[in-house]
C-alpha cells in the first residue's frame, strides 16, 4: 500500500529511501511550496553549509553534423547542409584561450554523431588540448562514445581507454533524455539505447572516469517514466558511486520536430524537488538557468539544487531551440547571494577552485 504524500515526505525527511511508487506519488502533490521545503531540507542534509557552487566553463560543440537526428533537437545538421560545420583545431584552441583568460577551469565538449570522423580524430583533439593547456576536459556524452565504438568496430571499453589515455578527464551525462526505451523510440530512435547509456556509464565509472547524469523531461514521457529514469540513475550510483551530479532540464520545443508546448516553471521546480528527494545517493543537483532563465534558475536553489551550473560563455544547443539566456560571473554570484548562500566557484569534481592567489573562490 502506498503511503499518503505527507507520510512519503516525512519518510524522506527522516532520511529513508523512497520506492518507485512513492516517488511517483509525489508527482501528484500540487503544493509546490511543500515539495520545495522538503527538497530544501534534504539539500541541507547533503550540504550543511549554506554554499552554492558554480563553474566557469565553456560549452564547445565541435560539430553539428549528426546521424542521430533526434526529434527534440534543433541543433543537428546533415553532412551536406549549407550550415553544417566541424570546428578546426585552431578555432578550438582559440575558444579555450578565451576561456582561460576569463578564469575558466574546464571545457565541456560535445558534438553531433559525425558519420566520418574517427576515434583518432577525437583522441588527437583531446591530446592536443591537454598538451597545450592546463584545463579539465569534460567531453563526449554516452551517445558519442557508443557512436565512436560503432564506427571503429570496437568495444566501448576500448574507446574509453583510448580517450582516457589521450587525456579525457570526465564525461558529461548528456544524451540520457529519458532512460526508458519506449520514450527513446519516440523522440530519439537512432540514439544509443537506455541500456547502452547505463552500461557505458558503468564502464566509465569502473575505469575511474567520473560522470554527471542528466534528464530531459517535459515532452512525451509520463511521470512514471521520469521516476524510472531516476531509479536507474540511483541504482547505478549505488553500484559505482561514479556520478558527480544530476542535472534535470526541460525540453525546449523551438525549431524541433516535436510540436509541443514547453512545460512551465511549476513543473520544472516540482520535478527538480522530486529529483532531490528521490536521489538520496547523489550529492549534487544542478539548477538549469540555461533552460529556465535566471529567475526560475535562482528559485531552484531553494527547491533542492545546490549548484547553479556554468556561466556558459558559449552555448549552442539550447539556443538553437529558441531559448537564449546569458549570465556573467558577477550576476551568478549575485543570484546565489540573494538566495541566501555563499557563492563558490568549483571544479568538475564539485570541489572549490583555488585561484592563483591562493584564495578559495573568486
Amino acid at each position, binding site marked *: 500500500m502506498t503511503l499518503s504524500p505527507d507520510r512519503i515526505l516525512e519518510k524522506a525527511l527522516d532520511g529513508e529511501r523512497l520506492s518507485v511508487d512513492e516517488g511517483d506519488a509525489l508527482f501528484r502533490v500540487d503544493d509546490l511550496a511543500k515539495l520545495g521545503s522538503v527538497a530544501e531540507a534534504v539539500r541541507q542534509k547533503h550540504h550543511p553549509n549554506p554554499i552554492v557552487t558554480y563553474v566557469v566553463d565553456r560549452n564547445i560543440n565541435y560539430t553539428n553534423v549528426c546521424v542521430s537526428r533526434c526529434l527534440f533537437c534543433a541543433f543537428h545538421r546533415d553532412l551536406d547542409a549549407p550550415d553544417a560545420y566541424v570546428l578546426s583545431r585552431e578555432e578550438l584552441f582559440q575558444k579555450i584561450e578565451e576561456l582561460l583568460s576569463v578564469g575558466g577551469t574546464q571545457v565541456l565538449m560535445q558534438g553531433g554523431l559525425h558519420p566520418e570522423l574517427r576515434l583518432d580524430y577525437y583522441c588527437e583533439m583531446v591530446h592536443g588540448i591537454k598538451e597545450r593547456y592546463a584545463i579539465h576536459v569534460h567531453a563526449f556524452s554516452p551517445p558519442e562514445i557508443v557512436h565512436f565504438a560503432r564506427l571503429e568496430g570496437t568495444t566501448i571499453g576500448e574507446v574509453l581507454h583510448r580517450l582516457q589515455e589521450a587525456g579525457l578527464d570526465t564525461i558529461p551525462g548528456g544524451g540520457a533524455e529519458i532512460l526508458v526505451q519506449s520514450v527513446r523510440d519516440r523522440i530519439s530512435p537512432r540514439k544509443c539505447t537506455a541500456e547502452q547509456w547505463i552500461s557505458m556509464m558503468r564502464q566509465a565509472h569502473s575505469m575511474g572516469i567520473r560522470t554527471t547524469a542528466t534528464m530531459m523531461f517535459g515532452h512525451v514521457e509520463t511521470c512514471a517514466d521520469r521516476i524510472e529514469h531516476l531509479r536507474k540513475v540511483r541504482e547505478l550510483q549505488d553500484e559505482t558511486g561514479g556520478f558527480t551530479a544530476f542535472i534535470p532540464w526541460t525540453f525546449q520545443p523551438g525549431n524541433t520536430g516535436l510540436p509541443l508546448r514547453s512545460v*512551465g516553471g511549476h513543473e520544472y521546480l516540482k520535478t527538480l524537488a522530486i529529483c532531490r528527494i528521490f536521489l538520496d545517493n547523489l550529492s549534487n543537483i544542478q539548477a538549469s538557468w540555461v533552460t529556465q532563465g535566471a529567475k526560475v534558475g535562482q528559485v531552484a536553489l531553494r527547491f533542492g539544487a545546490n549548484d547553479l551550473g556554468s556561466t556558459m560563455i558559449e552555448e549552442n544547443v539550447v539556443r538553437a531551440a529558441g531559448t537564449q539566456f546569458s549570465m556573467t560571473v558577477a550576476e551568478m554570484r549575485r543570484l546565489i547571494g540573494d538566495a541566501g548562500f555563499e557563492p563558490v566557484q568549483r571544479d568538475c569534481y564539485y570541489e572549490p577552485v583555488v585561484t592563483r592567489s591562493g584564495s578559495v573562490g573568486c
Partner: protein
Amino acid sequence: MQSELLWRLKSHELSDIAEKVIEGERLSLHDGIRLYRSHDIAAVGSLANIVRERKSGNRTYYIVNRHINYTNLCVNRCPLCAFSRDRDAPDAYTLSVDEIVDASGDVERNGATELHIVGGLHPDLPLSYYTHMLSALKERYPTVHLQAFTVVEIAHMARIERTTVTGILRRLRGAGLGSIPGGGAEIFGARVRSIICPRKISGEEWLETARAAHLLGIKSNATMLYGHVETIEERLLHMLVLRETQDETGGFMSFIPLPFHPANTRLAMCPGPTGIDDLKTIAVSRLMLDNFDHIKAFWIMLGPKLAQVSLAFGADDMDGTVAEERITHAAGARTPQRLAPEEIVGLIREAGREPAQRDTVYGVVSQRSGAGSGASTGCGGMCAVQKKDRR
C-alpha cells in the same frame, strides 16, 4: 492544509507569524521585514498560499484583453522609464482616436472583454482627446470594459484643464471610463521618488486621486514598482499605506507588484530584482494586504515561468493576454508581447489551479472545469463551462 503547515512550521523562525496568519490577524511592518529577510521561501510561500486559498480557493483568474499605449510623449521623463520620448524625438508618437479605434479592431474577434489604455503625460492634449477616445471606443465596442488612465495621467489632465481630479473623473466616466489601472504608484516614499521619478505626482497625490475615484464609485488597482533603489522597509510602507487607504475606501480590486526592468532606462546600473525577490514580494504583499481580494502576477514583467510559479506564492490572477505591450518591452523585457488564452489556461492548469476567465471587475466570464496536474495527466478536459458567477 493548516495542520500540514503547522507540521512544517513547528519551531520555525516564522512560527509566530504563521500563527497570526492562521488566525487571520493583521501583520505589522516588523512582521513584513522578517518575512522578507527569511531565506525559507517555501515557508513564506505556503503562508501566503493559506491567505490566497482562503480568498480565492483554487481558482486563478485571467482576462482576455488588449493594451493600448496611446502616446509615448511624456513631460515627466522619469529615470525609471525606457518608453517615454520628448516631443521632437524621431520615434515620438501619438495615436489619433481613429487609430486607437482601428488598433482595437481585434477585440471582438478575440473575445476580449477589456481595453487597457495608458500613455505618457502628453504636454498639451486637451481633455476632449481622452473623452473622445473613450466615447468612440464605447460606441464601436459597447460591451468592452475600458480600464484607462492611471491616476498620474488623471492628475495631469486636471492640471492641463485647471480643474479638480474629481471633475476630470466625472467627465471620463461620462465618456465611458470603466475603471482605473494601478500604474504610477512606483514606491510612494519621497526619497525614492526623487531618484526614480522626480517630476511625477507625490505618493500622497497618487493616493488622493485614487481615493477621489473610489469616492465616485470608480474601482482601481494598485501597483508597486520594486527592485531599483528602494529598501525593503520602503516597500512595506508602500503596502501599509495602501492597506490603510483600502480600509477607508474598499476601492482597490487588486495589487500588482511590478519587478523593475532596468534596460534602456537611466537606472540601468540597477540589476533588477531576482526571481526569489519576485516570489517573496508576491507572497509578502499577499500576507500584508489582508484587505485586498486579489494579487496579480503580471507575466509581462515576471516572465510566464515565474508568473506560473507565483500561483503557489500568493498570486491568484495571471492578468491577461495583453497583446502588444510596449512599455516593459522598451525596457528590455524578453517576454512575448502576448499570450493566447489557451497558453495562459495551460500555465494555470499545469500549476494545479482552476483557470477562470474574468472580466475587469473580477466577475467570472467563463470557468474552465477542473485543474490540470503535470504531464502525467495531460491537458485534462478543456470544456469551458459557461457560468455567470458574479461574486
